[in-house]
């Protein structure tokens, strides 16, 4: 049983890897369940031993991968507070925000065997919750698009602007309109606590989705 401590260079990377993989699957699943893209582009794949829907479209996949590639260093250094998947209507007003709040405990040594299968179980629960979330959410208007926002602690954003992690994939400061939503309703979906990461998923939903501004 290997023990990893925070100090190990691997620890941060391992956690970041796990989280980024999970976020990729979660984003694909959100796009599928909320019908942001037609279900024809999705195919069934397996993750954590359960079937999940992932898209086949190469550009979409590339976009999501690039996004998470940039987010990964933030997670490694524990700079990312929240990763938000925002679904916006045609006028680019957010109708739904899936917020993943991530926090990592500062100093911890873990034994990898049982821990990771436990984490896998928790992540599986998240995936299941996302699959059934449309019972509690209202339908989105047609023609929605999505974007990913990352809320970070102070210093990180400045660093990100200086260093483009991926060429031609710049991150910009999000505007007010995308970040804040009118009349949000908060619906918690799932929480998980484990030795390596604490994560919470909730959805903020706009009260009237077909509202015309």
């Amino acid at each position, binding site marked *: 049983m290997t023990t990893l401590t925070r100090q190990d260079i691997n620890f941060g990377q391992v956690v970041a890897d*796990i989280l980024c993989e999970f976020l990729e*699957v979660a984003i694909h699943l959100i796009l599928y369940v909320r019908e942001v893209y037609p279900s024809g582009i999705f195919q069934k794949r397996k993750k954590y031993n359960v*079937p999940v829907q992932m898209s086949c479209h190469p550009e979409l996949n590339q976009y999501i991968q690039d996004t998470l590639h940039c987010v990964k260093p933030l997670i490694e250094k524990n700079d990312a507070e929240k990763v938000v998947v925002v679904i916006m209507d045609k006028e680019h007003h957010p109708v739904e925000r899936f917020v993943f709040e991530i926090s990592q405990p500062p100093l911890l040594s873990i034994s990898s065997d049982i821990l990771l*299968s436990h984490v*896998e*179980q928790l992540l599986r629960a998240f995936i299941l919750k996302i699959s059934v979330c*449309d*019972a*509690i959410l209202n339908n989105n208007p047609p023609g929605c698009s999505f974007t990913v926002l990352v809320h970070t602690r102070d210093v990180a954003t400045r660093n990100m602007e200086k260093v483009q992690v991926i060429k031609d994939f710049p991150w910009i400061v999000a505007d007010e309109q995308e970040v804040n939503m009118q009349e949000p309703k908060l619906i918690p979906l799932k929480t998980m606590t484990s030795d390596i990461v604490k994560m919470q998923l909730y959805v903020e939903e706009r009260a009237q989705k077909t509202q015309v501004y």
Partner: protein
Amino acid sequence: MDELYLDNIDEYVNDHNKIVTYKWLSLTLGVHVNTAKQMLFHYLDHKRKESSAQLHATYLVSGKFVNNGQTCHKVSVIREEQLEDVKAKMSLIASVHVYSIQKALLKDSGPLYGVDYDAVRDNLKNCSRFSAIRCSSAVPMSSQELQQVKEIQRPPTSEPETKKSVSNIQTAVASKAIKPQKGIMGMFSNKTASKTQNSTKEIKTEEKDSPMVEAPKSKPALKPNSLMSMFENQTAKKTDKTVKEEAPPAAKAAPAAKPAAVQSSTSTSQPQNKLSHKEEKEEATVAKPQKESKSKSKRIQDSDSEEEKMEKKKRRRIKKPEPDSSDEEVIPDSPQKKETKEPSPSPEKQLESVTHSHQENPDKRVRKRRRVLKSKTFVDEEGCIVTEKAYESESYSESEEDFKAPKQAARDPFKGKLHSNGKDEKKSRQKASANTNKSTKQASITGFFQKK
């Protein structure tokens, strides 16, 4: 039956927004599966009368179905709206019961598997205690026998398995390894065994696999393996039926991370191990209490029906009857074959489908050609991105089951195969010639004809 269960189910469905499948309910409340099914039915009835919150239900329908003149046993999980429709189409209905109740309208059947997965995993040692399928002659092998089998497994990877005694054990092992033909995978009989073993090891996502995540994944799977031993399979015959995953643990065979030993043997087994349908008891060749991760049931390599009927959320198992059957949608132009061939799934959204000939001698490892559905993405004249799934001929051998999720690019189809047995060379050659030009989407009519 006291009425508390109604409140329990109500709590799970409405308050926790869970998907309540009958299997999960039976394991959670500690009741027999048939009781759980009745509970769900009463609950649904109760709620419908009250006409309160919106509930969706899925049903499991199984029975005889006549398909192009062929009668097969079909088991499907369907949405409530389609219930009457499907029932009308069946020629004889063996069973209908509520499969699950949930608040959300499920777009696909994936979550149904996920729900049962964890419940069963937690009860791995005795997941069949509430099940309705029993086979008194199926007992776990003692560790001595297990050792024996393992030893026999290891050397023969390089020698043809022709010995009856060896094959006997092997088929026993294999049949157990054959995991219950869950849903779609059932179609793939031979392949499924090894496939399932490997696929559970693979994380089929587009991104790189985190090595750490992979390691623990195989570990839980290994645990059942050490606990569960191989079974002696007296009735390793080829049964005709394949049963879907809700076929009880009796059917559930191999744990995902079988030792390599098992893997080699699985190839020899046939689709047989059929997990008889719940109502049918006895067929079970392996009544293993062990329940390995039901990764077997829902494989990404969703073959047939899962994908083709995704809109309808059907899982279909087509029985391989005495003559050949062909999957009606997948191969519209290929009728009978001389040998029973596993029908290949619909090309629509399949990642991969395998057709292979029915094996007559279980113990042989045969080198065959098979048509694999590959997915290719490219940009066509108009600049549109097209993903095409096409059949390609691929050489394989029964014993290899190394499937990787097809990536966007075509992947290398050829796995190095160790040995090919001379026995069925002729057959495979014939098949090879028939399959050589399978790069077109449409399966040619000669593709499935064997030299008679």
